[in-house]
């Protein structure tokens, strides 16, 4: 009789244990839509503890807290811009992976392009100068000394030709 009672009670007990366990494990995601929305925002935000990771990637404690915070803000009906502003108010522009255009970030946004334009300017100026220098020597009149050198070279080449022609098979 006792054994049979146990047969009933034991499975029941294990069932209770199962229920208790199930209650302890938190659901992976209570609301997949909010979760996805939050992750989309978190990818644009920097984790301040491990500064080269986004809020979505980071396992830092603060990142988890901030993800929770963002999720709650989404649930309370805040727009994406309002949520971003909420974080910027607390952590500054640094939390944004895409920093806004402000007087303090002008160098950041304009700097590389200014550098590129400057470098191109220097390059073209140099090329123009080089072209001008090359053009002068080909178009300009030869000086007396240059002319003498040219004639000397041409003259000796002519003499060589005559000598080669006189010697049979000299060219071979």
């Amino acid at each position, binding site marked *: 009789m006792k054994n049979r009672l146990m047969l009933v009670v034991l499975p029941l007990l294990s069932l209770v244990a199962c229920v208790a366990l199930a209650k302890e494990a938190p659901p992976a995601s209570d609301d997949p839509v909010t979760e996805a929305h939050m992750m989309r925002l978190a990818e644009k935000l920097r984790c*301040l*503890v491990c*500064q080269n990771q986004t809020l979505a990637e980071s396992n830092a*404690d*603060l990142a988890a*807290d*901030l993800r929770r*915070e963002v999720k709650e803000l989404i649930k309370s009906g805040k727009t994406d811009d309002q949520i971003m502003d909420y974080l*910027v*108010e*607390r*952590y*500054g*522009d*640094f939390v944004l992976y895409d920093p806004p255009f402000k007087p303090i970030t002008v160098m950041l946004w304009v700097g590389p392009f200014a550098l590129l334009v400057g470098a191109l300017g220097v390059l073209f100026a140099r090329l123009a100068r080089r072209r001008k220098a090359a053009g002068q020597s080909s178009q300009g009149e030869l000086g007396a000394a240059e002319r003498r050198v040219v004639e000397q070279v041409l003259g000796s080449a002519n003499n060589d030709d005559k000598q080669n022609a006189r010697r049979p098979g000299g060219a071979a």
Partner: protein
Amino acid sequence: MKKFLWPLGIFIVLLAFLAVGLRLDPREVPSPLIDKPAPAFDLPVLQQPGRRFSPAEMRGKVWLLNVWASWCVSCREEHPHLVELSRKKLIPLIGLDYKDESRAALAWLGQFGDPYDFSVEDRDGRIGIDYGVYGVPETYLIDRDGVIRYKRIGVLTPEILEGKVLPMARKLQQ
């Protein structure tokens, strides 16, 4: 000669930029909270169960809010300086015990000494977020009107305390 000076000049400029860049601490993010009112909160006082504290009570006083936790290693480094500061009784020092357990926090204060007038408990770190906390310890200097005037992220060394925080506090107290 000019040909050699150009690369040298560029190199020196680059060197200067790198030298400055290496000296900057990437963890020192300028806080947007400077010159803004300290966010309000209402939190239980760690040492006195049942009592609560809100920064509005400190109106008319210049005070320091120091964020700490018993799990925070750097706080242990900072702690002796705070104990030293509290002995001089120059400025009220209130602790914000960040994401901590009361028992661990009290044991920690018992072991290393309690420099705080009192500490409040921010168990889930929500007030920490309002204050833009991301690297404990952090310290805020708050003026008579409840405006944050200075924020230190990281250990409050005697150099910073003597060289920056206390002179600023003195000026604000006048």
